């Protein structure tokens, strides 16, 4: 092995020499390394944290928004409608929903009826609450968790059942301490069976208040369609594409389909939720990019400060080892050999610092995860490999740059003067 890779073997021997020096001065080595350790630790932990925050923010935004969805809203007749087609305005109908459901690339469609405030009477009291008509599966797609009982089912929607899922934040007002599931409430005078309760969605980091989701009452949209908006009509259809790449096509095709079905009437409008999500994600990216700049600056300054520490310790090391340098030269070491000796020491120290720092960064990440758990959140922060690579590359550069002058100084010593200790 050594015979086959002489250069590698020589390099390794230099590292061994350097490690011998490090072991000979453990405290000094630790102090020298501290700057580089902190720099590398901050680089690794902060890039990992930034990456994790970004991913969590993405997940949050994706869980509340619909990165693959758009909504077709019924718009009703325009007040300034001039064209005959607009006056005819068939409006959004259940048949539109079914047509959209069967388009290629569509993963799911959900009927929606955003509803209005209605008077809700329950055993513990009466109050005004927003009643929203939704399709089966809608609460699940939105990731509004069912707290008790069950969600709305396809059969409820099909049969236009008078069942309701009540937001948990309304629960005490309407039912006091009693279990709402199985009780009856009246909405605008009509009796509904409460089949479940729904809690507000939870987010990993996004500072979004979604409590309103748990201040509503969800009923089959078909109920509102039939009894309020008129037979066969609905307010909105949430269309979700199979994949993000297909989204654009699905959006275009869906728009064309509805327009065609309505004979060109402008009686609907499209809310592009995917675009909204992209906008939010872009904003999150922007914030994180700004943070990255600050972070790299901090890590860079720390590493450079670490490099200055390394520099002064190497100068001390050279001064201490003047005699040794002289002896080595007397035995036949040329300037290059002495230079390599000290550069290897510098690089070894810097590299060790980076390795310890990377370990420290991993420790900081574990601590962050631990703290997040104490606050009831479970951050899962993966170590960001580019951050690790950057820490090592940066440390090696620091080792080379700050080791260069001390190494050169050592190499320039005159053997006789060095041995005499002048």
């Amino acid at each position, binding site marked *: 092995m*050594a*015979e086959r890779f*002489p250069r590698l*073997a020589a390099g390794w*021997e230099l590292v061994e020499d350097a490690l*011998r020096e490090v072991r*000979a001065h453990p405290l000094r080595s630790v102090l020298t390394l501290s700057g580089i350790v902190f720099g590398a630790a901050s680089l690794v932990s902060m890039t990992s944290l930034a990456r994790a925050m970004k991913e969590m923010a993405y997940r949050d935004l994706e869980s509340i928004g619909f990165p693959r969805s758009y909504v077709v809203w019924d718009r009703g007749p325009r007040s300034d409608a001039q064209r005959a087609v607009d006056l005819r305005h068939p409006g959004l109908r259940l048949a539109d929903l079914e047509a959209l459901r069967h388009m290629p690339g569509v993963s799911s469609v959900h009927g929606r009826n955003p509803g209005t405030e209605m008077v809700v009477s329950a055993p513990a009291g009466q109050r005004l609450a927003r009643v929203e008509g939704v399709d089966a599966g809608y609460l699940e797609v939105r990731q509004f968790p069912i707290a008790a009982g069950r969600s709305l089912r396809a059969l409820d929607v099909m049969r236009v059942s008078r069942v309701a899922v009540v937001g948990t934040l309304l629960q005490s007002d309407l039912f006091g301490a009693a279990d709402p599931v199985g009780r009856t409430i009246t909405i605008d005078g009509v009796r509904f069976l409460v089949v479940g309760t729904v809690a507000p969605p939870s987010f990993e980091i996004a500072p979004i208040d979604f409590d309103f989701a748990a201040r509503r009452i969800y009923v089959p949209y078909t109920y509102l369609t039939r009894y309020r908006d008129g037979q066969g009509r609905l307010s909105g259809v949430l269309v979700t594409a199979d994949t993000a790449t297909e989204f654009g096509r699905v959006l275009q095709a869906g728009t064309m389909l509805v327009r065609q079905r309505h004979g060109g009437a402008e009686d609907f409008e499209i809310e592009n939720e995917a675009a909204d999500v992209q906008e939010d994600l872009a904003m999150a990216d922007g914030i994180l990019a700004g943070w990255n700049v600050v972070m790299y600056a901090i890590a860079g300054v720390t590493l450079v400060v670490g490099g200055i520490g390394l520099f002064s310790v190497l100068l001390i090391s050279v001064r201490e080892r003047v*005699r*040794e340098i002289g*002896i*080595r*030269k*007397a*035995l*036949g*070491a*040329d*300037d*290059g*050999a002495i230079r390599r000796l000290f550069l290897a020491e510098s690089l070894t120290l810097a590299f060790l610092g980076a390795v310890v720092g990377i370990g420290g960064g991993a420790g900081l990440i574990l601590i962050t995860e631990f703290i997040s758990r104490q606050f009831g959140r479970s951050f899962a922060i993966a170590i960001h490999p580019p951050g690790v690579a950057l820490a090592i590359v940066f440390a090696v550069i620091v080792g080379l740059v700050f080791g260069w002058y001390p190494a050169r100084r050592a190499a320039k010593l*005159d*053997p*006789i003067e060095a*041995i005499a200790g002048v």
Partner: protein
Amino acid sequence: MAALIAARGLTKTYRLGQVDVPALRGVDTTVDAGEFVAIVGPSGSGKSTLMHILGCLDTATAGSYHLDGEDVSRFAGKRLAQVRNRKVGFVFQTFNLMPRLNVEENVALPLKYRGGVPRSERRERARALLERLGLSHRIGHRPDELSGGERQRVAIARALVGSPAILMADEPTGNLDSHAGAEVLATIEELHRDGHTIVMVTHDADVAARAQRTIHIADGRVVA
């Protein structure tokens, strides 16, 4: 046959501030292969200065110096380092062993600077030499665990490990008691009998008497 060492008109002048201090004032000398030569002279006469130049640790201010057929007075830097490594084995009065390396590592060190000698071979050669000098039992020890005589013999082993053309020793017994000094001297004599060329500086007339030939130096000149 050409002399191993052939120096002509070697001059060395140190500059101390504005003052020139002449240490050598034109030294001519030759040493043939296989000779054992002692250099003697009063303190400050320039013995060490001459040895350093002959050992290629230092360069002369003027004059020419041929070592083993090469005009090394024209060499510098890397080439001079290689001459030191291959042609000369230098033994110091103060041993100058590496305190953190053990005996074997100390002896093998010059081969590290030869290039291309694998570690296993360096180790083997160091061990063989230590065995020859009766130091096998000290292989793993550090210099500070050895007696003065042992340290100097380790230093001799280190000087010889690269099979140099000449062994140069500047007062090798100067820091030793008489017993250890005799031991080191016996080693040197034995090396000479084995055919090594040896140049040794000494203060001691008895020591000098053991050499085949004596060069007397006074005030930077060869006087006899």
